[in-house]
């Protein structure tokens, strides 16, 4: 198969075909990660396109994307595999007659138990194995992209377990033996940096920090994803968002919010970023009441500069 990731240039081109604009940094590191067969750990503020990157990689390589969303309390049975007890129970009920046939001929209890043990494999086979994302990525016949999303939300315990899986891509299921990956999946981990990840995990990964994009990059993203927005307005909108990010907000607007906003502007058929439009749509961008007030105060209607009058006011009393 023609490998779309054979050079950094090709990586960039094929990612942009997936409507993902990759900087040199991103494309180089993705290329390296693929070449070295190392998991890629991406960190950065929320909503800068970390998850999107994994989707774009999957799209570009034509691989299936298997996603494991991490959360507090995620454990092996939810991430790796689980026996489907209810199905096993159902089968024993339905197969009761057959079982009776087999066991009925037994002379003694011991013989019956032996016979039952001989049939045990039926109940602990792939048929009753509920594959969770990690096992699915390992057992898949085609190469896959495994996205482990927001690893920082999972417990340290799970992180340690993940380490084992990521280092040799094999798991052992006591009833079935060791299962080894047919193809090494391309692993992308994302983290919002809410907690420090363990050194051991970091050591095994390549590190990519994605920050908020520059004006040009963000404009390119907006133009690509919301082509209906008129270019001049897009420019203004992106400049406004960048200004918001520089202001000290509780939560800075992310790229995805910029896109939402751009879509909102298109939907409202806005002609320019006047005060009324801004006030109507600002809540798409800014999600905290305090931030909203601040943005309105500072960016939409900046207070008239009062330096002189203030000084005057202060000294006039004396």
């Amino acid at each position, binding site marked *: 198969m023609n490998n779309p990731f054979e050079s950094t240039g090709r990586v960039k081109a094929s990612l942009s075909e997936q409507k993902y604009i990759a900087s*040199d940094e991103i494309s180089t590191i993705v290329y*390296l990660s693929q070449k*070295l067969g*190392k998991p890629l750990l991406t960190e950065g503020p929320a909503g800068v396109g970390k998850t999107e990157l994994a989707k774009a990689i999957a799209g570009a390589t034509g691989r299936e994307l298997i996603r494991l969303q991490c959360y507090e309390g995620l454990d092996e049975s939810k991430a790796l595999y689980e026996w489907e007890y209810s199905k096993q129970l159902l089968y024993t009920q339905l197969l009761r007659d057959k079982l009776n046939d087999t066991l009925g001929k037994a002379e003694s209890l011991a013989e019956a138990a032996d016979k039952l043990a001989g049939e045990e494999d039926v109940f602990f086979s792939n048929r009753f194995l509920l594959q969770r994302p990690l096992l699915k990525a390992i057992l898949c016949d085609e190469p896959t992209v495994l996205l482990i999303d927001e690893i920082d939300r999972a*417990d340290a315990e799970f992180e340690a377990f993940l380490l084992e899986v990521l280092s040799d891509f094999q798991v052992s299921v006591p009833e079935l033996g060791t299962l080894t990956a047919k193809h090494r999946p391309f692993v992308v981990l994302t983290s919002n*940096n809410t907690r420090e990840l363990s050194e051991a995990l*970091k*050591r095994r990964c*390549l*590190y990519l920090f994605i920050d908020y994009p520059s004006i040009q990059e963000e404009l390119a993203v907006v133009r690509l994803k919301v082509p209906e927005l008129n270019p001049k307005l897009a420019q203004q909108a992106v400049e406004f968002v960048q200004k918001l990010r520089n202001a000290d907000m509780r939560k800075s607007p992310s790229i995805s919010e910029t896109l939402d906003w751009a879509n909102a502007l298109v939907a409202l058929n806005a002609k320019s970023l006047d005060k009324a439009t801004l006030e109507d749509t600002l809540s798409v961008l800014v999600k905290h009441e305090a931030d909203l007030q601040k943005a309105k105060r500072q960016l939409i209607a900046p207070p008239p500069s009062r330096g002189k009058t203030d000084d005057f006011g202060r000294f006039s009393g004396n």
Partner: protein
Amino acid sequence: METRILQLIAALRASGVRVSLAESAEAFTAVDLMGIQHRNHFRLSLRTTLIKDVKDLPIFDKLFPLFFGSGQPPQMGGNPTDDMTPEEAQMFADALRQFAESLRQRMERLMNGEQLSREELEALGNMVGLNQTDDLRHQEWLAQRMMRALAFPEVREALRELMEQLQQMGMSRERLEQVRQQIAQNMAGIEQQIKQYAGERIAENLSEQPPGENADNLMNRPFHALSDADKKILQREVKRLAAALKTRIALRQKRAKSGQLDPKATIRANLKHHGVPMEIHYRNKIRKPRIVVICDVSTSMRFCSELMLSFLFALQGQVSKTHAFAFIDHLEYISEDFSGSNADEAIGSVLWRMPSGHYNTDLGWSLNNFNDDYMSTLNGQTTLLLVGDGRNNYNDPRLDIFSTMSRRASRTIWLNPEPAYLWHGDSDMPKYAPLCNNVLKVSNLRELTEAVDSLLST
């Protein structure tokens, strides 16, 4: 090239980035793969393999150009006499001749746009003691000194005179301006060269420096025997320990299976077993202690308190409510300072607000303050934590207030850097100690870590 990369890695380590052996091997593999023709690719392949933390990215970005050049040589303006008419050139030479010999040589080299040679740079560096420095923050200052050694200020002055002279001799204004600009550019070029050189040398020194003292050794070193550099290492270590402690405590809570039966979760989990309770679930045993901490921030105790505070606030998720107070001669409520995320800044602002005086520690009066305003923070769920040496400068210890406090709190723990046999003189420790549930000696980081651990585990 390989030694250069190894030097970079050593310098990174010396600046406090943790680079493991596996990671450095990885860096070489990546460089092999990407080649070194493309400078940016080379930089990225090193960065992605060596740096695994956002906080360390700036260190890498600062060190990399020092080991692998900034990409292009400094821009020199060229020789201004190149495109002068013979008369003008003659005029120039005449004007130059009027300066002293040594200064003239310097000027001429500047005119010609020559860069300094390696030997000259080395000689200059030795002159200002560049090879004894391994702190990148000195780069700017040492470069300044090297320029002074090159007599840059005098040369600048002389240039001004030269320009005046040329003007008097009748050189045209545009030409004069052009010459001035070229010379200025030449000077800037040399300045940049010197700066780059100073940075490179410092970085090399940094990489040759024996790997700093092991943090493990520092953990056992008593607080009062720590140098400023050690303290910085320890601050970093505290952050790491706090993170480790946090996960350990979280795990312990998770594994504490001795709690109450959780019927809801048990029924839910056992639906698949026909309701036969095969998996038993317990209620999460969450113990989130409330802590009221009173820290002595006078000079003798400052460092210990500082570490204790950074510990507590790094553990914020595990502690449901912390009220922190600091005292020297009176009590101040400092929790507000820590509402932001950066504990370093918060501690800095507290210490700035409460400068320590000379022998003015007064715990008694501080306890009195507490009694007046904050007694309500103590209740049956609170752990009262005191960090201090109990040296009260013969002031009234106010044992009455302290005993009320320890009665109201569920536990009272005192962390004292001094062992019991030193509790005499102005130490009121023997009087306070019987009122505490526990007095722990905390004189180094290891003991402090253990104290915090036991504080949160029982």
